[in-house]
C-alpha cells in the first residue's frame, strides 16, 4: 500500500490538517492497521454477544420446560394416587378452585378489616380511583415506597370486579386519530415501565395503551407494576387494555419469583393478596383486536386458532393455563386412549430419542403438555427442534372433548412461538403451546380478515423483531432482561394507518450508555456464571463422560473431546469450543486437565455435614423444582414448612426425577437443614444456601 511518490495536492492538504511530520504513506498505513485491528475486535465482541445470548436463552427455556414437567407430574399424582395418599394431600389444594361465588365477594371486601395506623406515610387511596390517585401511586413507587396492604387489597378487589365484566377479547379502535401504544413483557422491571411513561406519556383518554402480558416474575417490582397497571385500568377502563400472559398464572409464579416477592413485601397480608391475584389472573382478557385488523396476543397462534371460539370460552375456568379443565378426569381417559393418541406417542419416542417416556401414563389429552422426552440439542436435533425435518403432525382438535379443545386454544395463545419453517408443531423447548410457521400466519390472519399479529413472549436483543414477511411483530419491553446491557426494550405506536412504529430504549441505572464492550462484558460475566452453575450441578455426569474419552486414566482429554463430552451431558446446544477460553482457564498443548477443571468449578457448600454427598448434587440440580414444591406445600404461605413436610417434599421430588434416596439420607438432610433446630425449615434460608460462589474468582459479581 502507500501513496507512492506522486502525492496529490489533496493528500498533502490532508496531511497538513493532521499535522504529521511523517510521510503520508506511512501515516495511512498506520491508520489502516489500527482500523483493521479495531474492526476485528468489534467483530469478536459480536460473536461473544451472540454466544452469551444463546446461553441465557437455552438455560431459560430449559427451566421452563422443567417447570412444565413438574406440573405434569402433579397432574399425574392427582390422578393415580388414592385419596388417602399423603403426597396427594400435599398438593391437592393447588387444583381446587373456590366453588362458591359468595366466597369471592368476601375476598373482595377483606380489606375492610385492615386498619391503617397513623405512622403510615404512603398514599391513602380513595375509591372510585381517580387520575390523582393513580399518579400518586406512580410517584410512591418511583420513590421506592410501599403501598399499605389495605389499599393493595382494595385496589385488587376493585380490579377483580371490573375484570369480570370484560369480554375475552378487547376490541379497540383508533378512531379520532388516536395512536395506540402497545407494550410487551415487563417482568417486574419497574424502571422500564416508568421510562415508557416518561417517553410516551401516562395512559389516559387521549393516550390508550395495550399491555401484552407477562407483567410479573423475574424482576423485583412485579407487584408495583401490577398495581400501576390495574390503577390505570380502573381510571380509564376504555383506554387501557390488558392481555393475559403465561406468567399471569399462580403456578408459574411459585417458581419464577412473584409469589416470593409478594410474601416478602407483605408478610402479614401476603397470603390474601396472592389469593386475590389468583382470581384476577384468570379473569384477565386473552387478546386484543385493533380496528378488526390487528391481533395482539401474548404468545401467538396455532393452526387451530379460532377467535370466535376464544370469544365464547369461560376464561375464568382456566386458573392456570397449564392445567387442563377439571372435567377431563380419569373416567374420560378411556375415550382418548383409543389407538390414535397412544400410537402417536410411541412413534415420537422411537423417532427422535433413545430415552423413552417413563412407564407411568401421563394425562394424554393435553398433547401440548405431554411429557415428551427432552430433546438432546446436537446440531441435528436442533433442526428437528424447529421442525425442519418434519416432526410428527399435529392432532386434529376435533378429536377432543370440547372443553379440552377450548383449553388448548388458550394454551396456544399464551405459550406459542413463531418459527421460520412452514407448519405447526409442538413447542418442545418450552413444553407448552406450539411453533407456528408463516403459512399458519397467513391462514389464520386471512381467515379472520386480519393484517398483522403483534405478540411478545420472547426476549429480543433490539426489543422487537419482525418475522413471517412482516406479518408478525414481536415486542418485548423489559430491557436488560438477562443482565445489564443484554438487550433493549421497545414499544409500538399504532395509528389509524395501522403501520407499526417501534420506539426503543434501554433503562440504565448509571444513567450512562454502555459501550459495546461494557455491555457485552457484563452480560457475558453473568451468563458464564449461570453456565458454571449448570456445569457444577452435573459434576458427576461430566466426570463419567470425560472418563469415557480417557480410557488410560491420564486425567486429560483433548479439546474436541472436552466439547463433545460437555454437550452430551448438558444438552444445551451451545458452541462449547467458542466458549472454552472463558470456561477453562488453562490448557496444555490442546489438552484439558478435566479433574482440575471440575475442581475449579467450586462452590461454597452450605454448612451441611452430610454423609451422602450425592444428595447434595441432586439438590443443586433440582433446586428450582424443590423451591416450587416447597411453596406449594407451604399452604399458609408462612415461609416455613415442618420437618415432616420437608421429608414428604423430598420424596415427591425423588419420585418425579426417578431417583432413589434412602429414608435415612433424607432424615439426615432434614436435620441438618433445620438450622435453628426448632422443628421447621425456613424456605428462604434454605434456598439461600444454593447461591453458588465461584471460589476461584472471588465472591459472585452481583448487579
Amino acid at each position: 500500500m502507500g501513496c507512492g511518490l506522486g502525492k496529490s495536492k489533496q493528500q498533502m492538504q490532508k496531511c497538513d490538517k493532521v499535522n504529521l511530520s511523517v510521510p503520508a504513506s506511512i501515516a495511512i498505513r498506520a491508520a489502516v492497521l489500527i482500523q483493521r485491528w479495531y474492526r476485528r475486535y468489534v467483530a469478536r465482541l459480536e460473536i461473544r454477544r451472540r454466544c452469551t445470548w444463546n446461553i441465557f436463552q437455552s438455560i431459560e427455556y430449559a427451566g421452563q420446560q422443567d417447570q412444565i414437567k413438574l406440573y405434569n407430574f402433579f397432574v399425574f399424582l392427582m390422578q393415580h394416587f388414592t385419596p388417602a395418599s399423603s403426597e396427594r394431600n400435599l398438593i391437592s389444594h393447588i387444583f381446587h378452585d373456590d366453588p362458591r361465588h359468595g366466597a369471592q365477594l368476601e375476598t373482595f371486601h377483606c380489606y375492610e378489616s385492615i386498619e391503617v395506623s397513623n405512622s403510615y406515610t404512603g398514599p391513602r387511596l380513595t375509591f372510585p380511583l381517580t387520575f390523582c390517585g393513580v399518579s400518586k401511586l406512580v410517584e410512591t413507587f418511583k420513590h421506592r415506597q410501599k403501598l399499605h396492604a389495605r389499599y393493595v387489597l382494595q385496589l385488587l378487589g376493585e380490579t377483580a370486579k371490573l375484570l369480570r365484566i370484560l369480554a375475552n377479547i378487547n376490541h379497540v379502535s383508533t378512531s379520532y386519530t388516536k395512536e395506540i401504544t402497545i407494550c410487551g413483557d415487563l417482568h417486574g422491571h419497574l424502571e422500564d415501565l416508568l421510562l415508557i411513561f416518561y417517553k410516551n406519556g401516562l395512559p389516559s383518554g387521549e393516550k390508550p395503551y395495550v399491555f401484552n402480558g407477562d407483567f410479573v416474575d423475574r424482576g423485583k417490582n412485579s407487584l408495583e407494576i401490577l398495581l400501576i397497571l390495574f390503577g390505570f385500568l380502573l381510571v380509564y377502563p376504555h383506554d387501557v387494555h390488558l392481555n393475559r400472559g403465561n406468567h399471569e398464572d399462580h403456578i408459574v409464579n411459585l417458581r419464577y419469583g412473584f409469589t416470593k416477592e409478594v410474601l416478602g413485601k407483605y408478610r402479614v397480608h401476603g397470603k390474601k393478596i396472592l389469593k386475590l391475584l389468583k382470581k384476577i389472573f384468570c379473569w384477565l382478557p386473552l387478546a386484543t383486536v385493533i380496528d378488526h385488523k390487528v391481533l395482539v396476543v401474548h404468545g401467538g397462534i396455532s393452526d387451530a386458532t379460532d377467535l370466535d371460539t376464544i370469544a365464547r370460552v369461560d376464561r375464568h375456568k382456566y386458573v392456570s393455563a397449564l392445567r387442563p379443565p377439571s372435567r377431563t378426569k380419569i373416567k374420560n381417559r378411556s375415550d382418548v386412549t383409543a389407538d390414535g393418541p397412544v400410537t402417536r406417542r410411541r412413534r415420537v419416542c422411537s423417532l427422535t430419542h433413545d430415552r423413552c417416556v417413563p412407564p407411568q401414563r401421563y394425562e394424554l389429552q393435553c398433547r401440548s403438555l405431554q411429557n415428551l422426552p427432552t430433546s438432546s440439542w446436537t446440531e441435528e436435533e436442533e433442526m428437528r427442534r424447529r421442525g425442519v425435518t418434519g416432526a410428527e403432525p399435529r392432532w386434529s382438535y376435533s378429536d377432543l372433548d370440547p372443553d379440552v379443545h377450548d383449553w388448548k386454544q388458550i394454551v396456544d395463545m399464551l405459550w406459542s412461538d413463531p418459527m421460520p419453517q412452514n407448519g405447526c408443531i409442538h413447542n418442545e423447548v418450552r413444553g407448552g403451546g406450539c411453533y407456528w410457521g408463516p403459512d399458519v400466519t397467513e391462514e389464520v390472519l386471512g381467515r379472520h380478515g386480519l393484517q398483522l399479529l403483534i405478540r411478545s413472549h420472547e426476549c429480543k436483543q433490539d426489543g422487537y423483531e419482525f418475522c413471517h414477511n412482516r406479518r408478525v411483530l414481536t415486542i418485548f419491553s423489559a430491557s436488560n432482561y438477562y443482565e445489564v446491557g443484554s438487550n433493549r426494550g421497545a414499544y409500538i405506536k399504532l395509528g389509524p394507518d395501522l403501520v407499526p412504529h417501534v420506539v426503543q430504549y434501554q433503562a440504565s441505572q448509571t444513567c450512562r450508555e454502555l459501550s459495546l464492550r461494557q455491555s457485552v462484558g457484563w452480560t457475558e460475566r453473568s451468563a458464564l456464571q449461570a453456565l458454571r452453575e449448570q456445569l457444577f450441578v452435573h459434576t458427576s455426569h461430566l466426570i463419567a463422560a470425560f472418563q469415557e474419552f480417557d480410557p488410560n486414566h491420564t486425567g486429560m482429554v483433548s479439546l474436541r473431546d472436552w466439547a463433545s463430552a460437555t454437550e452430551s451431558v448438558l444438552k444445551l446446544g451451545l458452541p462449547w469450543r467458542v466458549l472454552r477460553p472463558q470456561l477453562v482457564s488453562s490448557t496444555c498443548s490442546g489438552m484439558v486437565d478435566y479433574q482440575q477443571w471440575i475442581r475449579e468449578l467450586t462452590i461454597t457448600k452450605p454448612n451441611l455435614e452430610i454423609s451422602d454427598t450425592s444428595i447434595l448434587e441432586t439438590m443443586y440440580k433440582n433446586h428450582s423444582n424443590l423451591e416450587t414444591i416447597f411453596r406449594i406445600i407451604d399452604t399458609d404461605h408462612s415461609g416455613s414448612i415442618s420437618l415432616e413436610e420437608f421429608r414428604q417434599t423430598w420424596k415427591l421430588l425423588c419420585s418425579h426425577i426417578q431417583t432413589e434416596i434412602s429414608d435415612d439420607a433424607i432424615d439426615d438432610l432434614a436435620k441438618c437443614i433445620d438450622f435453628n433446630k426448632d422443628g421447621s425449615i425456613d424456605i428462604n434460608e434454605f434456598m439461600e444456601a444454593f447461591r453458588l460462589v465461584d471460589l476461584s474468582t472471588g465472591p459472585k459479581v452481583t448487579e
Partner: protein
Amino acid sequence: MAEGIQRADISASDVHSLHKRVKDAFQAFDYEMNNTVDVREITTIIYSLGCFPSQKDIHEFIAELEEDHTGSVHLDKFLPVMTNVLMEHKFPSIPEDVLIQAFEVLDKDSKGYLDSEEMVELMTKEGESFTQDEMTEMLMALADHERRIYYKDIICQLTFDQEI
C-alpha cells in the same frame, strides 16, 4: 473440500478441528438454523476466526461465495474456503508490537496518547475510513475522561488470547 491444497504437515484431525471452529463461528449467526447466514455477517465471522483481512480482501472473499446474489451464504460453500484461508494463514494478524508502532507513528510528539480529535481525523478520513457509528463507539470504548487514548494501555486491555 480443500484437500487438494492441504499441506503435508497438517493432519486430518487438525482439519477436523478447523472445520469445527469454522462451523461454530458460522452457526452463531445462523438464526434460522438452516446453515445459511446473511452475507453481511461474513465479515464478523472471518474476523472472529482470528483473521485480519483488508476491506478489499473481504470483498473478494464475499464475491467468491455469493454468486447467486440471494444475500445469504451457505455453510457448504463457506466451510472449504474459510478452512483454506485458515490453513494457509492468508490474512495473518498483526502482532501487538507492530500495532503499537502504528500508534507511535501517529503520535508525533511521543506523548504516549492520541487526542480524540486526532483519532477522529485519522480514522474517518484516512485509509479504510470508519463510519460515524464506528467512530463514536471507538471513542466511547477507548478514550478516557480527558478524551485521550493511551494506546499502550488499551492494547493490553483488549487483546484476545489466540485460538490454537
